[in-house]
């Protein structure tokens, strides 16, 4: 696949290259103009574009800001650079120019892609945040999401531990849906995708991220936009420049924090002191956690090249990100390739844009984090690290819930994930104001998971002499739209109207097979025929699909650069919904007042810009619904004997709900954007309030009359509100020294308002206490170990726990947690609804991100921080590892024998505050003075970074940076599954020719 992409894209790029080269036309002209481009501080501007107006004749400035261009004596030249106000100068025979470009401090006319519309930031009335390349995170960035982590208020990106294979999670303005659809929509150059597709891009190929947070803008995407939209524009070819760029980092990773359990000597002494007669002593001294580790490394290389003129341009890029995790055998490789070509024809009336990108990502996972790390920590340290002579691994036969961790590392668990996208757009201008464009895109994804559990380890023996599995999942996504837009200024009126028709088609299919009973481990998962046992149900396949059809109208109106209004009207039809509920209507409206352009403020020099915004809109969500959920359909239900023959029977696999409809989110947003003192201080403040109704959820329903105890239905209601503040300031800005500080803080409050309603005339209300997650491990199975819950009247993900009155001596010298009789009924009963209380929430109330960057001459330094406050973490790891009841079969923490707690009741004793501030990275950069080196090189930049510098926290566990935003069984629960914390030291090089 990888090679295919390469050879394919290489061939295409070659063709494009040849085509473009033919178009190059450089004519000998009358005079040669020379010049120098500087900014207001006198620093040369490198890479500014100098172009003869109306032609393709151009060049870019060198490292000293110098250029030389041959033009007709009566022509004009245009000098431009991103972020600066362009200038056009008549040559008039003049041969020498000294040009000072002014920074476009207002940055208002920057092009912003807001959904289907492309406008300038000036005309936007919703809450839109744009992150440009220079504002993205540096250091080790292996996933596009990491490049905006901590950058935008209200956008929370979280990556746990040092596992190279784990991908970050993201929430835009928190959780607004209970079942799926909480990931934002990703739109890459117009292509709809998910977070997986985003990974098909090399982070360095991304030019900008635009985050649409509030419904007045996300409503453009109707049913896809409910959880926010991340619009990604990638780097394209530029006019007037031939460039070649290399961007790379190399880093070394090491563990900086680990869970330390009793070592072999401490273990033996604890056994002796405690008088444990049944302890197993394997005669060795092993630190299994250490045995599993190695030095990790991470590499990121990307080469891009491109060229172009005003008529056509192209750009190609290939990249590889490689990471070897600190746990033996865990690694990740992501190969990416990308090609874009654009062309204008017929007097620029027709614009053709074409893009392709593809990736192949290979992950080798640590199989089952919880099992592996639980095993590593609690495995008997007196057992040897080597295999037994018969090839099996030493095990403590009594330790049923854990396996030899080194044996577990021989499990092969691989994922191959390939994406290929091709998209194209034709835009035709009937008049300068009226444009028709047709866009089409195709995305193919193939994901293959291969697992082999060897026959000589405990897990493999348990499966019946080894188990191999292979599953393959494909998706084909087609989308296309036709837009007609009209943009016109009438005097002080600016009007922008857009109409859209769109279709999306999603097809999924897959195949899976398991085989057990392997005589040899030689084949791994590569030859399933080597497995002796294949049973009914071991071979499966599926195929399903759904379609969405949409229509939209958008009106953007501005009067006198002061009053802005935007209205979006969108209707979506989805095939997944019930017969009578297929269509949903998602309108939105927003208005803004640019108060700084009013006469009474216009002349105040300190104020650069102040805009007040308000918006309201509806978005829909249907992601929780699987295709065919609304239909009563039959599936194979099992195998039985009919007339002595094995026969498969069919039946209803779920409670069908023909009334399934759109989950709807209504959001109100009010905010202000400001920049003061020539943009030395800028920022924005937003307040939002959203209410999700017809909440899709698998409601608990009574059996009978229902067949199954869950029914997917639209009932409940959820509310979110929050405040977001972003500030940035440049206290110092001189020729040699800059200092810029930016920070963002967001506060959010979530409440599950209701989970009841009427379904087909019947009152439905779900269980009062819906358990999300509990503690696992020896002695916990099936007990009252619930920790994190969903409850009406509370935020999603609250800790609902018994209260411990503190450790108490049970009279035998050991200690228990002494659970309080909260309901004062005379007995302690920790079942749900009895002696338990809501003890805190898992999701932080406040998130913050901060960045300090400074430049001294050619050196620059950046520090990025992130933090979260107001939430709690359940330390299930300590609860388990402090429990002397399981000792000596399971190893414990060094303090455990002296504290002698013989209790594993889940109580609030191990509920801790989760507040933290983390220094994500520190990067030192140096820009070489390349003119002293070589004329060919335009830029060389060298960086040195440290990622995961330090975490400030009072949390006693390994790390407070666990999953606290994604609703699931591990939300807020630190339970023995944490991959050790790693720190990465890296060097980066960026070189442009």
């Amino acid at each position: 696949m990888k090679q295919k992409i390469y050879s394919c894209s290489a061939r295409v790029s070659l063709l494009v290259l040849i085509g473009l080269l033919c178009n190059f036309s450089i004519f000998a002209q009358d005079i040669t103009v020379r010049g120098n481009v500087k900014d207001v501080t006198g620093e040369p501007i490198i890479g500014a574009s100098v172009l003869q107006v109306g032609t393709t004749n151009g060049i870019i400035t060198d490292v000293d800001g110098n250029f030389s261009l041959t033009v007709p004596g009566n022509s004009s030249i245009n000098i431009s650079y991103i972020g600066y106000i362009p200038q056009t100068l008549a040559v008039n025979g003049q041969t020498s120019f000294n040009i000072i470009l002014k920074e476009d401090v207002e940055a208002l006319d920057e092009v912003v892609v807001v959904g289907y519309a492309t406008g300038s930031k000036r005309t936007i009335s919703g809450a839109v945040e744009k992150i440009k390349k220079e504002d993205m995170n540096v250091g080790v960035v292996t996933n596009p999401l990491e490049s905006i982590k901590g950058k935008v208020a209200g956008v929370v990106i979280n990556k746990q531990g040092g596992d190279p294979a784990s991908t970050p999670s993201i929430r835009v303005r928190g959780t607004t849906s209970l079942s799926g659809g909480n990931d934002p929509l990703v739109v890459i150059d117009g292509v709809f995708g998910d977070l997986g597709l985003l990974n098909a891009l090399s982070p360095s190929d991304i030019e900008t991220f635009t985050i649409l947070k509030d419904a007045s803008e996300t409503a453009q995407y109707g049913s896809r936009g409910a959880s926010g939209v991340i619009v990604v524009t990638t780097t394209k070819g530029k006019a007037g420049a031939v460039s070649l760029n290399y961007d790379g980092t190399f880093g070394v990773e090491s563990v900086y924090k680990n869970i330390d359990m009793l070592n072999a000597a401490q273990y033996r002494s604890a056994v002796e002191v405690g008088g444990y007669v049944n302890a197993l002593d394997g005669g060795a001294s092993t630190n299994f956690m250490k045995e599993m580790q190695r030095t990790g490394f991470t590499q990121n290389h990307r080469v891009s090249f491109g060229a172009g003129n005003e008529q056509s341009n192209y750009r190609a890029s290939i990249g590889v990100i490689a990471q070897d995790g600190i746990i033996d055998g865990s690694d990740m490789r992501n190969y990416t390739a990308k090609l874009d070509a654009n062309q204008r024809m017929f007097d620029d009336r027709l614009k053709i844009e074409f893009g392709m990108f593809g990736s192949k990502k290979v992950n080798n996972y640590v199989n089952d984090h919880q099992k592996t790390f639980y095993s590593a920590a609690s495995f008997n340290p007196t057992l040897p690290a080597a295999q037994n002579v018969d090839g099996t691994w030493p095990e403590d036969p009594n330790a049923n819930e854990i396996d030899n961790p080194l044996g577990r590392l021989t499990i092969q668990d691989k994922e191959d994930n390939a994406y290929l996208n091709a998209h194209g757009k034709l835009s035709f201008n009937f008049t300068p104001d009226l444009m028709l464009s047709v866009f089409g895109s195709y995305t193919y994804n193939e994901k293959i998971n291969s697992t082999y559990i060897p026959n000589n380890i405990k897990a493999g023996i348990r499966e019946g002499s080894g188990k191999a599995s292979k599953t393959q999942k494909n998706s084909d996504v087609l989308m296309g739209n036709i837009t007609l837009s009209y943009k016109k200024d009438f005097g002080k009126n600016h009007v922008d109207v857009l109409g859209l028709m769109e279709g999306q088609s999603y097809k999924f299919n897959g195949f899976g097979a398991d085989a057990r009973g392997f005589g040899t481990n030689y084949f791994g998962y590569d030859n399933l025929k080597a497995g002796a046992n294949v049973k009914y149900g071991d071979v499966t396949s599926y195929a399903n699909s759904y379609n969405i059809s949409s229509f939209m109208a958008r009106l953007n109106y501005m009067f006198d650069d002061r009053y802005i209004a935007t209205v979006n009207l969108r209707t979506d039809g989805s095939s997944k919904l019930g017969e009578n509920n297929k269509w949903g209507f998602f309108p939105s409206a927003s208005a803004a007042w640019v108060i700084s352009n009013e006469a009474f403020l216009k002349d105040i020099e300190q104020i650069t810009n102040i805009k007040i915004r308000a918006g309201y809109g509806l978005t829909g969500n249907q992601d929780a619904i699987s295709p065919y959920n609304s239909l009563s359909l039959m599936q194979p239900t099992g195998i039985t004997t009919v007339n002595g023959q094995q026969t498969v029977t069919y039946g209803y696999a779920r409670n069908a709900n023909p009334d399934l409809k759109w989950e709807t989110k209504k959001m109100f947003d009010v905010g202000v954007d400001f920049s003061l003192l020539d943009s030395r201080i800028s920022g924005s403040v937003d307040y939002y309030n959203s209410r999700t109704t017809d909440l899709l959820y698998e409601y608990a329903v009574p059996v009978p009359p229902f067949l199954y105890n869950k029914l997917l239905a639209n009932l409940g209601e959820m509310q979110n509100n929050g405040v977001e503040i972003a500030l940035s300031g440049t206290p110092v800005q001189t020729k040699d020294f800059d200092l810029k500080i930016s920070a963002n803080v967001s506060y959010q409050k979530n409440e599950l308002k209701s989970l009841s309603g009427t379904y087909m005339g019947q009152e439905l209300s779900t269980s009062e206490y819906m358990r999300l997650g509990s503690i696992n491990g020896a002695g916990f199975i099936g007990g009252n170990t619930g920790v994190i819950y969903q409850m009406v009247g509370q935020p999603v993900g609250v800790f609902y726990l018994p209260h411990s009155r503190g450790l108490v001596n049970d009279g035998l010298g050991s200690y228990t947690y002494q659970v309080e009789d909260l309901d004062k009924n005379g007995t302690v009963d920790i079942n749900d609804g009895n002696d338990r209380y809501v003890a805190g929430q898992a999701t932080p109330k406040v998130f913050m991100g901060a960045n300090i960057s400074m430049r001294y001459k050619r050196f620059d330094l950046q520090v990025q921080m992130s933090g979260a406050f107001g939430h709690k973490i359940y330390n299930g790891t300590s609860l388990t590892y402090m429990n002397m009841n399981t000792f000596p079969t399971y190893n414990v923490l060094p303090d455990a024998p002296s504290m002698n707690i013989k209790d594993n009741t889940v109580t609030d004793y191990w509920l801790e505050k989760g507040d933290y501030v983390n220094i994500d990275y520190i990067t030192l950069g140096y820009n070489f003075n390349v003119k002293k080196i070589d004329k060919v090189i335009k830029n060389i930049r060298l960086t040195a970074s440290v990622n995961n510098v330090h975490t400030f926290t009072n949390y006693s566990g390994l790390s407070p940076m666990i999953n606290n935003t994604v609703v699931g069984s591990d939300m807020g629960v630190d339970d023995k599954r944490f991959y050790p914390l790693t720190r990465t030291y890296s060097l980066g090089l960026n070189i442009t020719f």
Partner: protein
Amino acid sequence: MKKNIIYSCLLAAATFALPSCSSFLEENPKDQMPEEEAYKSPELIYLNTVANLYTQIGATGGGEGLAGTDRGLYDIQTFTNDEALLPTRGGDWEDGKLWQRLYLHTWDKSEAPFKSVWDYLYKVIGLSNQSIDKLNSLMEADPENIYLPVYKAEVQAIRALYYYQLLDCFGRVPLVEKSDVQISDVKQSERSEVYNFVRKELQEALPYLNTANSTKEGEYYGRMTRPVAFFLLAKLALNAQVYSDDDWTDNGGAPNGSTDFEMNGQKVLCWDAAIAYCDSISNLGYQLSSTYSSNFSVGNEKSVENIFTIPMDPAKYSAQFYYIIRTVHYAHGKAYSIDGWNGASASKELLASFRKSKNDPRLELCFFTGKVTGPDGAPVMDGDKELEYKPDAVAVDVSGIADEKTAGARWKKYEIDPASQSAGKLQSVDFVLYRYADVLLMKAEAKMRKGESGDNEINEVRGRVGADALSKATLNDLLDERARELSWEGVRRQDLVRFGKFCDAVDGRPATQPYCTVFPIPHDVVLLNKNLSQNKGY
């Protein structure tokens, strides 16, 4: 709407050039099929109205199945009485003290196994209702068809089997007989109504059911045949005083319902009915197997004693079996290449019952009581010493004692299938639900309750294993005999309730209140359906 569709056609044509665009928002399922497909031929009708219910009798997990996978029906019938324990062993089997609560009768109304048993039993009842509704409509369309009434009777009997379990566990349960029922129509019936319903349904189905032995491989393998229905009717008759008693909290827990039993349109004494049903089974040719173990070993399809079994075969079916895995020590399981969860153990009461029976080999036939050997005949090693179970060290909580991991005699009634898969969960010994020894003991009991001697039947059972004959056996002797013969076969709780002894004190547990003889309606179910009320005492 129409406009929208027209537009979507235009769009689809323009962007995708789909062959047929009017269906753009219509679903055409590929990997699931519409209902019509499932009843297209007579074979498919049988398959999807009757055979599909048999896939539910065994189960793959989640506490489902009539054998009950882990934490299901079997467990609430077994670990709540005086024959078995899942002792807490340090960190193992603490499990939030679930097993202790079951043994101590201190279970809560929201205990998970009650909910999974309830949901499972009613799921199969719901599926049966769908089948019956479908068969009724097919019968209306085709009144001449002679197979449909037979199918319907079989489904009715299966549904009765499931209501019988609900009756036994939860007493007051809703009777739902149709598939299109609203929540508001689901109302509780008294225990006696449920009992009468089960009796009536089984009696109605009887004449349609085939007399074949359902434990033999072939057409009727694993199916609800007439002997199975007879067996259930015998149980109903024997427990008539329990099931017709709508207030089980009075009379010190001893059942005081009616001894009337309706049979062939007449009221007869329930003991006579029980005897009659037992005789009907005998008349079909069932007898005791010559060896006790052959009922529980590989190839037990050939047993002449088994009446109703769950077909098991690792290669053919997905029904799972947990009970050997769950009892044997880790090292013991490893020696047989199966899991060992080192749990379930025989209670002191059961051990005593075995020990007081003269020349009775059944303790050794049913339990591992000391050192054990692996399949190769060599002793099973626990670390560097031989593994040895300590039957008398058993207690509710053995944490911290020297025999923490070895306390308790372990179940060995079922042969460990050397060809088992999935760590022992898939194996080829059919799980025995009902067998003829129980029929003999039922008949003995019914006779004794009428004042006659049950010695013949009791001694037939004892004689098969070579135990000394009893003479003038009392009802208490019979109860003991049932404990020994049918140990851990899921009948003990019902027996104790019938004898009014379920709440008596046992080792480590003081006497409990009579309300415990019926389990609570799962708390969630009561919360979700306002029509339902909780059983007394909870």
